[in-house]
Structures are given as structure tokens and as C-alpha cells.
């Protein structure tokens, strides 16, 4: 690699300088490896008094490594400073509003962190016999019951570790259902506004994707749907409200039409927040629902995970659910069982159980009444923002939205050359996270705002004011917008270079710099 753009830094430890703390300017933070000094240690292990027999006497020598795996060798003090400083280079819900559409970045109650660390929950081995984990089984079963009540379904699996895992699980259930009826159906229909995980899951589920256009209302084109339906159709995947934030008003007709041809309806629960306690997927006619507990039920997203994607199903799909599942026996005790025609495991153990504990905590605090309030206020906030932004950022479909609103910067771009991405980047300077950009794909210069119910009117006002300022700036000084963000720890990054000249590790970096040994 000759592209001489890799920044040269010392390979040796950079010292205790708070070099990245934005508190002190926007300087670089070395990697942990650059702090490393061979021989320096941080770890402290329990005194165990087991004879320190040489490992070569215990294992066949041909399997043993001659050199230890080289890691970063730092003091606890430097470890703390490094990761504290890195945390200062990271935006988060805890720092400010995060109106990232489709992601439901609401406040994550701190009490849930404590629950997820409780002794008796956090320190339990997943292979412990059922008799000793009655609490965990009860917790899981209660979670399943609450999720079924919220979605209007008969039973659920808690195993899927995230939404996409839930989708694939749901599609395998769909396949198993048809197969059990002796049918081999090949196609699954999804709207063109669908999230990328939907088509990807369909493929992995063994089906072909049939894409459905969105009509001028921003909804499923009913005629196109009907035309696409036949005996090959295994089912349809929808999220409702859809990814435009609009409720599929024809859901009853859609459900009937799909069921008519023997297909099933899959509900992508990413947008469940909008309808909590208002309407239930089961009541709309859906057969399979996955939920993103890390969206709707406020389990924190952890910078990209973990999540939890339980899948709830209607009666007829219950026998196919993954197993083992928690069950309550007649004597009141809890145990495990596998449904009769279970598709098998979809997780190494029982799912992201500590995420479930967080979600159940959230669900109990809110209760039935609180969940309804969540939906109401999420929708109220989104609509307030929609109307308030209309002057400069018209909604892609101008009508009452649900929990999120997709606006278009298309007109702005044509007039000023300022793109949706520029707006998103400039908003970072204003102290807000950007909205989702360029999704759904069908809206030109899409900006998708999901304020969520935990943001205040004052926050929405401040957000709208900032966006208005940006709109005026687009007219007066478009270059400033192209140059944004300027106050962040780094400015726009060269994504093309990252792909062209792949440096995925410290070693690749050192090699590119000619530093490798």
C-alpha cells in the first residue's frame, strides 16, 4: 500500500495525557495497543493455590503455542483513562436527543441496568437444572405472557437475539407451517419501503422476495398486492405503521386477501411503539410478530447491540416454535418443554435473557395504562414535529403520521444543492443526533425523525429551531453545510478510503505503516 495517508503516531505508549478528552480540545486518542508496554499488567486474579504445573506436561506440545497472544499491556489506570476518554467521543441517549427514525431511541431507564446486574439473575449459569432456576423461568414466562397480550398473540419464543433473528425465525415458522400442511410455498411479499433485514431474512428463510410498490398514499398498493397473491405465496411481511410512519389503513383487507390464498402475515415489530395499547397485530390479522425489545421496550442499544427479538405467533403456529421453552407445570413449578413440531433452537441458550429482564422491568413500570400513554405521546411528538417542520422540511406524505415522520430534503437539494446528508451532519453541531437518512429508499433525500415519547416539547422546539436555522443557512451559506460537522471530535470521514484500503486491525495499520515486525 503506497497511499501515504495513514497518520503516523508513536507506537510507544502515549502517556496519561487526556489526549482525546474533548474537554480539552479535539485531539486524537491513541489505540490501546499504542499504550502498551510489554510486562505491564492490570489483572488481579483470586489466589487459588492450585499447583502451577508446567502446561507442557498437561497438553500435547504440538497443540501449544510458543508465544502468548500479544495483547495490549497497560495499567488499570491507563485502561480507565483510555475508555473513559473514548466514552467522551461517543454520542448517546444519555447525552441528548437521538431522533433516529426506525430505531426508537427513547430514554433507557437506569433501574433496568441495576436489574440486569442483580445477583441471582446475572450470575446464573444457563445450564443450571430447572429446579434451581425457577425464578428465571417464571420471569421468562411472565415476559412471554405480557408480550403476547401486547401483540394479541397466543405464545412466543424469547430466543431470537435481535429483530433480524426474529424475522428469520418467523420465516422458518412460516415455512414449517406450510410444510406441515404439505405445501411448498416459495414467495414472500414485502413492500418496497421495507427495512433491509426483511428481504435478507426472506432469502435466508428459503423464499424469494416479491417486492410491492408503495402507492401515492404512502401505503401498500392494494391492487398490486392482490395481483401478486397466489398459491405460491407463503406470506407477507409488513410493519404497521410502515417505515414511512403511516398506518396501513387497509390492513383488514390486506390480511383477508393474504389469508385467502393461504398465506401468513408477518409483523415486523420495529414500529410497535406507535400502537401500544391502541391496536394489536393479532387483532389486525397478523400470524407472526417479532418485537425489538431494544426499541419498543427501552432496553439500551449498546452502540449496536445487544437486542432481543422475541417472536409471538397465533395459535396455529404455536406447535412450531423454537424450543426448549419455559412452561409452568400443573403443580405450579416451572420447567422446559419443546413444542411438538419445533423448528429447533435459534439461540445457543435461552435468548438474551438479561435483556428480557430489562424489558420486563420496563413493562411492569408502565403497565397497561402506561404503554398506551407511550404510544399516544410518541405519536403526538412526531406529529407536532411534522407540522412544525412543514415549512422547510415537507413530510413525504402530508398527513397524520404515527410515531415517526419522513420528510424530504429533495426540494432543498434542488434549490440549494444542500443534501439530506448535509442537514444530518450539520445537526450534529447543534447538539442533536441526526435523523435516519436515505431510508426508506423510496423517498427522495429522506430524513426520518422519530422523536419518541421521552423527549419534551422543549426539546422538540429546540430541534425544530435548529433545523430552521439550517434551512436558512442552506440558502445563505450552503458551503458551511457541506463542511459540517466542524465541532465534532472528527469531521466527515473518508468512507471510500476505508473500503478501498481496508485497515480493520492494528496489525493491518502497522503493516500499512511499515511498522510490523
Amino acid at each position, binding site marked *: 500500500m503506497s497511499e501515504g495517508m495513514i*497518520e503516523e503516531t508513536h507506537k510507544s505508549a502515549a502517556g496519561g495525557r487526556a489526549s482525546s478528552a474533548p474537554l480539552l480540545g479535539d485531539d486524537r486518542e491513541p489505540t490501546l*495497543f499504542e499504550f502498551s508496554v510489554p510486562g505491564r499488567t*492490570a489483572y488481579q*486474579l*483470586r489466589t487459588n493455590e492450585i499447583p502451577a504445573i508446567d*502446561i507442557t506436561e*498437561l*497438553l500435547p506440545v504440538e*497443540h501449544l503455542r510458543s508465544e502468548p*497472544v500479544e*495483547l*495490549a*499491556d*497497560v495499567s*488499570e489506570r491507563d*485502561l480507565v483513562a483510555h*475508555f473513559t476518554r473514548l*466514552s467522551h467521543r461517543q454520542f*448517546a441517549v*444519555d447525552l441528548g436527543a437521538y431522533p433516529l427514525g426506525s430505531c426508537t431511541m427513547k430514554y433507557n431507564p437506569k*433501574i433496568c441496568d441495576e436489574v440486569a446486574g442483580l*445477583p441471582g439473575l446475572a*450470575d*446464573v449459569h444457563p445450564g*443450571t*437444572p430447572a*429446579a434451581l432456576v425457577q*425464578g*428465571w423461568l417464571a420471569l421468562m414466562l411472565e415476559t412471554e405472557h405480557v408480550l403476547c397480550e401486547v401483540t394479541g398473540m397466543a405464545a412466543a419464543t424469547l430466543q431470537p437475539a435481535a429483530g433480524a433473528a426474529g424475522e*428469520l425465525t418467523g420465516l422458518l415458522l412460516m415455512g414449517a407451517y406450510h410444510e406441515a400442511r404439505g405445501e411448498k410455498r416459495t414467495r414472500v411479499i414485502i413492500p418496497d419501503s421495507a427495512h*433491509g*433485514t426483511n428481504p435478507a431474512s426472506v*432469502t435466508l428463510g*428459503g423464499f424469494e422476495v416479491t417486492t410491492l410498490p408503495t402507492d401515492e398514499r404512502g401505503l401498500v398498493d392494494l391492487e398490486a398486492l392482490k395481483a401478486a397473491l397466489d398459491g405460491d405465496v407463503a406470506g407477507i411481511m409488513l410493519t404497521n405503521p410502515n417505515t414511512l410512519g403511516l398506518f396501513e389503513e387497509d390492513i*383488514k383487507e390486506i390480511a383477508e386477501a393474504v389469508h385467502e390464498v393461504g398465506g401468513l402475515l408477518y409483523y415486523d415489530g420495529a414500529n410497535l411503539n406507535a400502537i401500544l395499547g*391502541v*391496536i394489536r397485530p393479532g387483532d389486525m390479522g397478523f400470524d407472526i410478530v417479532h418485537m425489538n425489545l431494544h426499541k419498543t421496550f427501552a432496553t*439500551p442499544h*449498546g*452502540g*449496536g*447491540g445487544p437486542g432481543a427479538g422475541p417472536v409471538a405467533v397465533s395459535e396455529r403456529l404455536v406447535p412450531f416454535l423454537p424450543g426448549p421453552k419455559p412452561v409452568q407445570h400443573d403443580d405450579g413449578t416451572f420447567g422446559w418443554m419443546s413444542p411438538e413440531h419445533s423448528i429447533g433452537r435459534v*439461540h445457543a*441458550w435461552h435468548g438474551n435473557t438479561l435483556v428480557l429482564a430489562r424489558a420486563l422491568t420496563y413493562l*411492569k*413500570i408502565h*403497565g397497561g*395504562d402506561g*404503554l*398506551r*400513554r407511550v404510544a399516544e405521546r410518541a405519536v*403526538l411528538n412526531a406529529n407536532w414535529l411534522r407540522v412544525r417542520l412543514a415549512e422547510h422540511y415537507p413530510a413525504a406524505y402530508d398527513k397524520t403520521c404515527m410515531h415517526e415522520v419522513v420528510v424530504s430534503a429533495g426540494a432543498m437539494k434542488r434549490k440549494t444543492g444542500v443534501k439530506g446528508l448535509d442537514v444530518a*451532519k450539520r445537526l450534529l453541531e447543534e447538539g442533536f443526533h*441526526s435523523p435516519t437518512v436515505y431510508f426508506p429508499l423510496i423517498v427522495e433525500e429522506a430524513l426520518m425523525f422519530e422523536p419518541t415519547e*421521552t423527549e419534551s*416539547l422543549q426539546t422538540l422546539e429546540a430541534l425544530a429551531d435548529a433545523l430552521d436555522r439550517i434551512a436558512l443557512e442552506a440558502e445563505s451559506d450552503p458551503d458551511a453545510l457541506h463542511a459540517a460537522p466542524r465541532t465534532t471530535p472528527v469531521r*466527515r470521514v473518508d468512507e471510500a478510503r476505508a473500503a478501498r484500503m*481496508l485497515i480493520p*486491525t492494528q*496489525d493491518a495499520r502497522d503493516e500499512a505503516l511499515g511498522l510490523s515486525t
Partner: protein
Amino acid sequence: MPDYMPHTDEEIASMVAFLGLDSIEQLFDAIPKALQVAGGLSLPQGMPEPDVMASMKTFAKMNKAGADQLICFAGAGAYDHEIPTVVRTLGGRGEFVTAYTPYQPEVAQGVLQAIFEFQTMVSRISGLPVANASLYDGSAAVTEAVNLAVAASKNETVYLSSGVHPHWRSVVKTFARGTGHNIVEVPLNNGVSDFDAVKDAGPPGVIVVGHPTYLGTLEDLADVRSRCDEAGALMVVAADPVATGVLRSAGSWGADVVVGEGQAFGTSLGFGGPYLGLFACTMDQVRRLPGRLVGETVDEEGRRAYVTTLRAREQDIRREKATSNVCTNQTLMAVVAAIQLGWLGTQGLREIAERSVRSTRYLLEGVTKIDGVEPLLPGVATVRDVAITTPLKADLVLERLAEEGFLGGLALSALTDEGDGSVEPNLREHAILMSATEKRTKDEIDQFVTALTKAVVK
């Protein structure tokens, strides 16, 4: 009405008025009235935080399995390692915990750099040049590895060794329902994959082995490599990352993909999740890599910066043609692993690996002195886990041990299905899989041996 919403009644009224509406309910007019929930969800009313905390603590107390109650000799892919306060504190910082996927790299350098460091560590542990930003758990990682390998070899026949964790094998088979891969299970013979037993299955597109196997035994990886070369197959190794502290890396034996479970690096046992799927591969396969990948680049001012890269593989861009459907992964656990591995350092990783080997050996020697307790695989060296057989049924023995305050391991009858190719059918009911990490002391093991001595008496 406890909740986290800021709206006062006056604000709601003003917002509704701003929208030209009379009530909040009108916002839901697009939803057919007939379908709407009448009378609210059939759930209890909300409860304030302290009440809910009390009820969550009740669940915790119903379990008789916390570290205060049972000393852990169970492993099988979930290990009781030291997690120091410092790692929990740093990993628990709100900026890491409450961030989303780093879609805006300018304000996500914290997570991105931590993942870059994590990828480096996983790469070094696996002996392969590139690692992703995590998958759900070990089972998801091995499943994705199979998908990658089939795509690369264009051969759907998957030799799946029975030395791979039984649950992971189940998951691979579940997802093969969708992909249609032809999964051929390769039995173990004395702890090593017996490929001769499946020689009629047709040439593989991929061979998947565990190293160590879930029984702790070591595969002949050189042999696996040459079998792969012969068939044009990819070699996938499910490797325990702690064991790699003493073992040659799977990458050094020529693996194309190395996967594993990273829970041991700072993530609590947590009844099984969230855990951390590790995934590393050769550069040849990087464009088939599932999940996120962070790369170094520069910003407009030439400063070093990190960003998710090779995004064209991912579902949001490639949609039905994506290499994988994964979106949300286990980033926080990856950040925690980077912190924990930073805490361990070169010496620490080696030390926990060596100590785990020694503790497990000391345990094995102790228990096999008991009358009727035998190694499942006499004379076979093991790492991480080891299986024994007892005169009584394993679950009875484990029940008795629990009364003495020990989680004695996992019954192979619970872990495996009947007819599993990894264990002799007649021994399965009597076999226990055990493990001792660096946390187990001599005293604890000695006491355990005493307890087991009593427990195996009929």
C-alpha cells in the same frame, strides 16, 4: 402513573391544539375503530420503580443458582471467569450503553475505536487477519460461518463435527431449514472427528470442527486442513478463545473462518445472554463477512478516524442479496471484551488459560480417584471442559451436589440429543461435563471432591 414521559397536561393540550385537533385519540383516526383495543390491555396498572425492583428481586431469590449459592463447575460454552469492577464500571458507562449503531461516525468514534481494538484482539486470538464487530453468540457465528463457506465453496454439503457444541449444532440445523444446506454430522471417535464414518456423504463444501471440542478434546487440525484442501472446502473452526491462550490459534492451522463464544471476556453468565459471537476470517473472504466491520480511515482534516466499512455486504444496502441478515449485533459485549482483554493483557490471557487447564486437570484427578467415577475419554487430553461418568444417573448426582452448594457441571443427557454422535449411547445418561476456571481454588475443588464422593453413593 409512573413513567418517563415529560409531558404535562398543559403541554399536551397545547400540542393537540397546535395540530388543530381536539384530542390525542384523533391521532389514531387512521386506525379502524373496530380493530382498536377496547378498554385497554389486560395487564396490571403500572407500578413505581421500587415496587418493580422488589418483584424483580423476588425472581432473583426464587433462583437457587447465584454465585452465593452454587460454586460453579459448569462450563459447556458459558464460563465463570473473573469480571473485575473496573471492567463492569467502564463497560457500564452511559455513553457506550445508550448509543445506537455508529451510523454517524463523527459522533461515534468512541464505540468505533473500541470495536477496532476488539477486532484486533479477536484477529490475534484467532490467528486470522480480519474479525467483525460481533454476532449474537457462538451458535450464530458458526451458522454464519457455514453460510459464508457454502457461498465461497459453492457446495452445500456441510460436514459438521459432533465435537461442536450440541446447541450450536442445533442452531445450524434449524437455520439450514431455510438455506437448504445439507448438514452431515460427523461423529467423534475418542474425542476426535471421525471423517471416515461419513465418507459416503459426498465431498464437503465446508468442514466445521470444534477446537477444543465441547468435550474439551483437541482435533487434528492439520488433517482437517488437508481434507478441506482435497475437497476444495473451507475450514471453519469453532475455537474457544480462552483456550487459545495456550493453544496454537486455529488460524495458524489454516482455518478459513474461526468462530467462537466471547462471553468469557467480561460478560456475566446471565442465564445465557446476551453473549458475544466472535467471527474472524481470511482476507479472501472479507467481502462475504457477515455483520459489521470497522475500518480505520481519515477525516477531512487528515485525522485518524474509524468508520463501519465494506457496507455493500450488508442487508440495508444489498437487501435480499446480502451476505447475512444481521443488523443489531452484540456491540456492547464487544466493547466490554475489549476492556476485559485490555485488563488481562498478554500475561493475563495466558494466565487464565493456564490456570483453567490446571484447575480442570486438578479437578479431574480429584474426582476420578472416587470409586466408580471415570473419565468419559480415558487418557485423552482436554482443555477447558472435561467429561466424567458416574455410577448413578448424572442428573441425580447433580441434584445432590446442588444441595451441597455446587453446580457440578452439565448432564450430557440434558445437553445432547439422544443418538448424539459425540458420546457413547450407554454412557450418555451417566456423563457429566465439568469445567474449572481460574476462579476455582484448591479448597473449593477439594470440597467438591468430597461432596461428589458422597453424591455417587447409591
